[in-house]
Structures are given as C-alpha cells and as structure tokens.
C-alpha cells in the first residue's frame, strides 16, 4: 500500500509538472516544472530501488543539466520572448503523433497473451530481493560488461564538451 501511495504521488507529480513544462509561457517557469518532473522521476527511481540512479538523476540532471538550461535562459533575453507567440500551429500534428504513439502502446497491451510472440513479454518477475539497492552492483556491471559503451560515452561527453565550447565561444 505504501508503495502504491508513493508511486501515485510521484507519478502524478511527474505528469502534472510535465504538462506544465510544456504549456507554461514563461521559460523559467517551464524549467522549474521540468526540474520538478525530474525530481519526481528520481522519486520513482528510488521507489524502484535504484538508489544510485536516483542520486545520479539529482546530481547530473537536476544539479547539472538543468542549471545549464537556466543559465542559458538567463543569458538569453526573456521579457520579449514571453510576449511572443509561444506555440507553433502544429496542434493537429501533435495530436496525430501522440494518438499514434498511444495506439501503438495500447495495441501492445491489448495483444499481450492473445497472439503468441506479440505484445508485452512478461517473463517471470525476479524475486523482490534479487537486486539489492546497491551502487556497487551498478559500478561492477558498468566497468565489466559495459566497459566499451562506458568509454564511448566518455568520448561522447568529451566531444560534446569541446563542441559546446566552440559553439558558444564569442567570435572575436
């Protein structure tokens, strides 16, 4: 029961603030609601006992990426932007895409168990305590099975860093 309360609380928070992120006119408000959504997701991670991911979400997403966003929003002028038209006239496209997505996932749920080899493959869930909330487990996996992706990710970050510096640098 407690699990359920926590899940619905965080899920509701995430969805509501996600909606507000997309609909607010003021970009800073959008960013604040996005931060709330990310924090709520972190809560979901914690509820899923992914402690390490929870703190990575907070440190990296909330403490790093979103600070960058807010920093840029402040550098870029706002009081003009608020008065401008905020939404492109693509309502129908958006509706279409989202309906298509929803239909796709709905089909997946619907077909589960009805057609062999289709839908959600729910194999036997692992026992509750199989995955202890353990950052060491993640680290071990990261540095053994996923060493190559890890290295690639670090190269990607390096490239992104250099790219960002080059992009944002003033041409003097």
């Amino acid at each position, binding site marked *: 029961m407690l699990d359920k309360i926590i899940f619905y609380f965080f899920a509701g928070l995430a969805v509501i603030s996600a909606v507000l992120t997309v609909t607010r006119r003021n970009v800073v408000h959008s960013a604040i609601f996005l931060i709330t959504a990310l924090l709520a997701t972190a809560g979901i991670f914690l509820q899923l006992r992914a402690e390490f991911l929870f703190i990575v979400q907070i440190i990296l997403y909330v403490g790093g990426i979103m600070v960058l966003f807010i920093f840029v929003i402040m550098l870029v002028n706002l009081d003009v932007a608020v008065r401008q038209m905020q939404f492109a006239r*693509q309502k129908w496209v958006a509706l279409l895409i989202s309906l298509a997505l929803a239909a796709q996932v709905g089909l997946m749920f619907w077909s589960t168990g009805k057609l062999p080899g289709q839908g*959600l493959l729910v194999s036997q869930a692992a026992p509750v305590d199989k995955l202890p909330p353990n950052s060491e487990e993640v680290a071990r996996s990261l540095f053994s099975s996923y060493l190559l992706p890890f290295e690639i990710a670090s190269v990607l970050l390096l490239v992104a860093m250099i790219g960002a510096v080059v992009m944002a640098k003033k041409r003097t």
Partner: protein
Amino acid sequence: MLSIEHYLFLGLALFIIGVIGVVTRRNVIVVLMSIELILNAVNINLVAFSRLYGDVAGQVFALFIIADAAAEAAVGLGIIIAFFRNRETVLADEMDLLKW
C-alpha cells in the same frame, strides 16, 4: 513492486507530453527541455524492467542515457547561444537559413 504496466503507462504519458512539447513549442529551449522529458520517460521504462528482471543492465543503460542527455543539452544550448548572438531569437521557426 507494482505491476510493470504502471511504470509503462507513466513512461508513455511523459513520452507523449514530451513529443507534444517538441512539436508544438516555438521556443528552442523549451523544445530541448521536452526532449529531456522524452529521455526521462525512457529511463523510467528501463529502470522498471531492470527491477522486474532483477538485472542491473537497465540501470546501466539509464546511466548512459543520462550521459547522453548531458551531451545533448551542452551542445544544444551552445548552438542556441551562438544562434542568439547572431539572430537575437530563440524561436524555432525563425531558424530558417542554413547559413547567415
């Protein structure tokens, strides 16, 4: 843990909201933020499956996605700043030239 469908529906909701944001908003910064939402929705699914199967791989992939999001945000915001310096706008539909 709750049944996996709970998490999948949450992920779907966030994903769709993110897509709507990407498609409808004019402000590039908000578009980037919507992309973050989409990535986040994917993370929820990954972590939920990781918990379901008791396999840490899902969490590892979520980590990679976060790293990816960081890279994307850095480059994207760099472009926005460079663009803003030249054109003084952050609206997507005014970015209609390949070169200026």
